[in-house]
């Protein structure tokens, strides 16, 4: 039983956080001038860049929907994002799956009927990976979409939570994720507390599920505050510049 102690009896996690604490979040928007909207987000050492192009004319005629826009999500993980350098193919099933998660998350939130016959492209680049890639991707996408001025019903905030040894904990890092903890990612609309995505790949006892869900929800709300502040600061900044 010489496995690493993920949660010490003193109640501290491996990096010194307590179970209900998020990692340090840094975020900015409008980082790429080429894109219509972009955002850069850090969850501790997980770093993601999101770029949104569109709404613009759809590339493939066959895919065009006459009453609304289509979403297109592409996800790429940099070879240098993990300790071990590894190049992933574009057709990596994990990446395609994750991209489709992001797409499904945003389809009901983006008001696509405003942009008929068009396409919105979302490009996600994971620069550094330290657990919680999916939540970071979703959060970064939300901010990039807002930055692009695309109409949405609400923010989408995502957070992971899992059962670490004997307690529920949120925002798992790579070590916690990889040592066989069951992990749930949920994406939430913070105003209505509606959930647009839940994703879980391992087994988790039903008795524990409720607690994990509750904590993940709280994590989403915390995320919302951080993201909202960034967006508002950015908007204020722009407003100030326009006034001048």
């Amino acid at each position, binding site marked *: *039983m*010489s496995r690493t*102690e993920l949660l*010490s*009896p*003193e109640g*501290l996690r*491996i*990096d*010194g*956080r307590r179970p209900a604490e998020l*990692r*340090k979040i840094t975020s900015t928007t409008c980082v790429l001038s080429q894109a219509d909207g972009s955002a850069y987000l850090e969850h*501790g*050492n997980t770093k993601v860049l999101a770029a949104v192009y569109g709404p613009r004319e759809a590339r493939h005629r066959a895919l065009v929907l006459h009453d609304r826009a289509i979403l297109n999500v592409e996800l790429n993980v940099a070879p240098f994002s993990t*300790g*071990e350098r590894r190049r992933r193919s574009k057709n990596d099933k994990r990446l395609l799956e994750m991209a489709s998660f992001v797409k499904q998350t945003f389809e009901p939130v983006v008001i696509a009927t405003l942009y008929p016959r068009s396409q919105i492209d979302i490009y996600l680049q994971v620069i550094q990976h*330290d657990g919680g890639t999916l939540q970071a991707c979703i959060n970064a996408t939300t901010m990039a979409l807002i930055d692009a001025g695309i109409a949405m019903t609400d923010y989408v905030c995502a957070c992971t939570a899992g059962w670490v040894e004997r307690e529920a904990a949120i925002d798992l*890092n790579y*070590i916690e994720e990889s040592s066989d903890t069951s992990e749930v990612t949920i994406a939430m609309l913070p105003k209505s507390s509606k959930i647009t995505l839940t994703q879980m790949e391992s*087994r988790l*006892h*039903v*008795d524990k599920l409720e607690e994990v869900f509750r904590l993940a929800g709280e994590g989403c709300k915390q995320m919302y505050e951080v993201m909202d502040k960034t967006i508002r600061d950015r908007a204020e900044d722009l407003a100030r510049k326009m006034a001048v």
Partner: protein
Amino acid sequence: MLRQKAFMKKTKSGKVLKVVKEHYLRDDIWCSIETCKVCEHTESVLSTVPSINKAFSLPHYIIPDTNIFINQIDVMEHALITNVIVLQTVLEEVKHLSLPIYNRVRDIIANKEKRFYVFSNEHHRGTFIEKLKDESPNDRNDRAIRVATKWYGNHIKDFNPRVSVVMMTDDVGNRDKATADGLQSISVKWYIEALGNAEILDMMSSAKDLDDGQKSIYDEHLSPAHVSNGIKSGKYLQGKLGISSHNYLEGSIYTKINGEEGTILIVGRSNLNRAVDGDIIAVELLPKSEWRTTPTGVVVDEDEEQAEEESLKAEQEAAASAAKEDAVMAEPEAEKPASAEGHKLDTPQPCGKVVGIIRRNWRQYCGFIDRKSVHTPAGSSAPVNVLFYAMESKIPKIKIRTRQAHTLLGKRIIVAIDSWPRTSRYPIGHFIRALGEAGDKSTETEVLLLEHDVPFHEFSKQVLSFLPVEGENWVVKPEHFAGREDFRSLNVCSIDPPGCTDIDDALHVVPLPNGNYQVGVHIADVTHFVKPGNVMDQEAASRGTTVYLVDKRIDMLPSLLGTNLCSLRSNVERLAFSCIWELNDAAEIVSVRFTKSVIASKASLTYEEAQNRIDDANMQDDVTAGIRILNMLAKKLKQRRLDMGALTLASPEVRFSLERDTQDPVDVEMKELKETNALVEEFMLLANISVGRKIYEKFPDSAMLRCHPQPPSANFEKLEKAVARFGIEIDHSTSKTLSDSLDNAVLPDEPYFNKLLRIMTTRCMMQALYFCSGAQIEQEFRHYGLATDIYTHFTSPIRRYSDVMVHRQLHAAIDSSLSYGDEITDKEKMNDLCGNLNHRNRMAQQAARSSVELFTHLFFKNKTEEEEGYVIRILKNAFIVLVPKYGIEGIVYASAKVPKTDSTAEAGSAAPQPILVYNPETDCLQSTETLAEGETPKTQVQLFQKVMVQISIDDDLKGGGEGGMRQKLKMELLKPWIEGISVHGTANKDDPEAHAVTSTKSNNKREDAPVKAQDKKRASKRTKA
């Protein structure tokens, strides 16, 4: 505040990775001192007025460094040491160095009275430090400890200037630096000495001072790198050392030699080179010319060496004893050429030499102090070095330093080994605690529980909190019927041994209209009460099994469950897990189903009562009729099982009748088996097999099953040779052939022979083991003894944890809507659990056996009995006799003992004179006279030979004699008369008259009658004394 930790790591495959981790520093880590106003802790661990010690003017908190915990954990566990701040730095280092010690530190921290507080200094903003350039990790950690000490010092000053903190370290350099920083520091030794308590002083681990002046006795161990390279290249072999239970200077490892599994013998002190039983060692093979062909010898005289203090003398003796061993070894070697060529079977056994120790298996040992090693006058409290004997004869003597030598004499104590330097003949250890007077029943019982690693502490409050709140008044309520079948109207009854309070199985049978029978086995539904993962479950999992001793029982589950709520007592409603078959008239299974149920047993019978009901034609009630049908079916089941090749084995088990108040044994009887025992057993086997199939079907990767491997043919070699003498052949190729040949092995003039043969066959068997179905291939699932392809344990969940697990798996298998965690699906966890259960089981068996042994000793105290016995094992210089009446075994030495009193002057020459020598050709001991071709030796001792022995207790309890305080059953040979062996000079060395008797005795050899009479006389004398 955020810091990054980055370091390079090498993976298993050899790649170098850069690992980056986040490291958060916090402001909310509190000091945990009661009166502190600054910190916001709710529960304070450290008291306002901490420890007081003469060495310091102020009361203080102690901050120990890593090595204090690693080297002096016993001192830290002592009740006198309280108010200790354990730094996270220290804790992590301890964990890295030694997991067992880390667990012990965690136990101390969990103990509220010890007031040990863990201060997470690495995550505290004020005490975190970065590693400096050119600073080694050790230096950084030492500095971190000093910084934390300083922080605490300043912190306390703010609100309570009359207390201080003290850093405890044995590192002089660290202490100097601390003084330079203006911190208080002290070594353990000074601290403990200032406390002035003899007990805790003895518990201090001896400092590892390497005295270069002394000559080293042992070869140096190779460096770990050297050893691992050697093992990779095949130069050295790795294995777990198992010391022979008859000879502590002989061990063996089981390993692969040139691709073949085999045993390597390691003989003699210098070859063993400081390895202790259970250590993982690296061994170098000796050249073939030094390999051995003889069987295990016995160390006749455990005191062959003088005490350690006379190191020079000991030196010479070491040489002498080594020479002696060589001589003993060389002797049969000289005969070898003739015999070896005659008998190709006797290939020499490979021998080896320990070159390095990979992992120590030192634990705490129970034992006693050797009286002869105590030289100070009574009452003196000066520290002296004394020798300690462990109860386990496989452990070498341990040198300890104590100030309470005289108070500890005659007591059982616990000792730990600290180190074994090259210069010391014996390992060096320290005293931990005293258990009580030797020979006292409760002390001895505690000793045997400790020695077998049986957890016997009371259930903690936390465990008990998971019992139903209603306690004794718990009853089956309507809501319990959800998902359960109502079997209350069935005629269920239980049959158990007399006095059984934990009834976990009950039976019923109903004749069906189609001529078949519905048979149900109902097992106590323990898992209704024991939910997975809670503290009670964890406790039960770690205990693994209930341990049955002669006079008491160490429960796996709290007794409220075991003997009441789960126990299927008569006339109360109980929850059960039922296995229901439809059997036809030939007892073949037509169908089987499993269900949770509620039953109300109509009768709980003993085997005897059940038997009487069957036999009594007047009894015609439903329950009796049911038992009769069950009995009929059981006989058919048994017959079919035997036809399949199930073995009927035997063990010489006995039952003690205890005196009611004192629990002293007054009589002993063989365990008797009745027809009804077999009845219950048959249906339990049937249930276990059916359940095994079911759970394997549902959980092919993680089912908990039980297998019994086929014994390797090497186990049977000696037995085959021995019975060949009687014209009997043993064919062990399958269990069927073995069972047949056992059935045919009957000697008309020796009725006990068949039973004896079965007992000895039992000893050739492998141990049955729990395993996880995903960890083995399906062919290995077989249960050899029961001749079935799958088997598990389902029927005794009250006393075995494996059954609890099987219940959970079966429940998950029959109820698809049930939610369950990974404890029943995770292959790895299941494997770990099986390992623990196998260990606990083995230990429980051994503890039970030791308990019987203890009671046998108590029974024979002040008694001398003459009994018939059989030779069941031949050793090089002794043979082992089994006495069926008492089910005991003892060693009879084949060498004349030289009385110790005469030989103290010339200790080295006290080599025992062999009277009988071992003949490897016939595997028997024979007299030494030279033989002509074809002539049988005058006297010989061989396997299965019937002998008369006199049994008594080596009444040497208080130490001072040869056996020290290890109680020993003494067996002396009466018949056949063998000159030199049947005369025991040592038995009555303090009785001149007896000496006279024995000397006359040797004149009338071969006349048994007078000898017996004299022995009786001697016996009566002893009882008077």
